[in-house]
């Protein structure tokens, strides 16, 4: 599932024309938002909207990424491609198990 989510994140990044440099072997480490991040807050808004929409379309799952948990975590899930993919995976697992 995680690689499917990573693919969605990359497609969304492409859609919002973020021009983020991706390193082939270390895509998970690609910084998104925060101290090392390349996205500004408006890019992040566009990225979240694009990802939520793709998850709805491709995985048939309704998700809200900017929830309480995401906004209150010490390590923001929006820091990197890997942390965001993991966060989305966690939400979906929680929903499936709960």
């Amino acid at each position, binding site marked *: 599932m995680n690689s499917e989510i990573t693919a969605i994140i990359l497609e969304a990044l492409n859609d919002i024309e973020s021009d983020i440099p991706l390193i082939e072997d270390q895509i998970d480490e690609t910084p998104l938002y925060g101290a090392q991040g390349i996205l500004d807050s408006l890019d992040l808004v566009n990225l979240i*909207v694009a990802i939520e929409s793709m998850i709805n379309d491709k995985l048939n799952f309704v998700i809200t990424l900017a929830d309480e948990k995401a906004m209150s975590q010490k390590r923001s899930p929006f820091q990197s491609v890997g942390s965001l993919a993991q966060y989305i995976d966690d939400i979906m697992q929680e929903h499936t198990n709960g």
Partner: protein
Amino acid sequence: MGDMPVMIITGTRKGIGEHLAHHYLGKGFVVVGCSRGGSSIDNEYYKHFSLDVSNEKEVSNMLSYVRNNYSRLDVLINNAGIASMNHSLLTPIHTAERILSTNVIGSFLLMRESVKLMLPHKYGRIINFTTFAVPFKLEGEAVYAASKAAVESLTEVLSREYARYGITVNAVAPPAIKTDLIKGVPRQKMESLLNRQSIHRYGTVEDVSNVIDFYIQPESDMVTGQIVYLGGV
């Protein structure tokens, strides 16, 4: 149905919301409506959801339906609202919470989720509902007026946040209209209210749809962050 513009109207079971649903169905919109209860509208281009506008999951599911079935949303009309006309000392905290939850959180949630559908098309029109109780500072409507003052703030701030996406956000305050909202208000009080309006008579639901027609027409793309108080304050 693919080319028809799509509109969400909250609070369509009765009153102004029901009128607006019929009005815009007549103008060729697909209307997605909602209320706490069932639907009073039977039309092939109308889809109803029974939900609480302050419930995040229920609202997300309705927007997901719009995304999956129409892939677009042109207009959001945040009409759903509740009032409680009472002295503050006679207002239970649960009533205050319910008013704030429906009027403020409900409007905010609908806007946040709707913009996600409007943003990719760089087009959208959002209409919120406020009341003359805000500028008139009406006694006996403290929580209701406070909730609508918050809606006015949301209208003004979000008009700025969404401007770059071609989305306008405006509000309308209906004049005194004979709807359920004021059925418990004494006649004498209503008459003194009408006297405070610049135009001293009851308005109609058509007065409200007239302002919304103006807000949502494509030519109104420079009109945002505005509040029209019908009847004049």
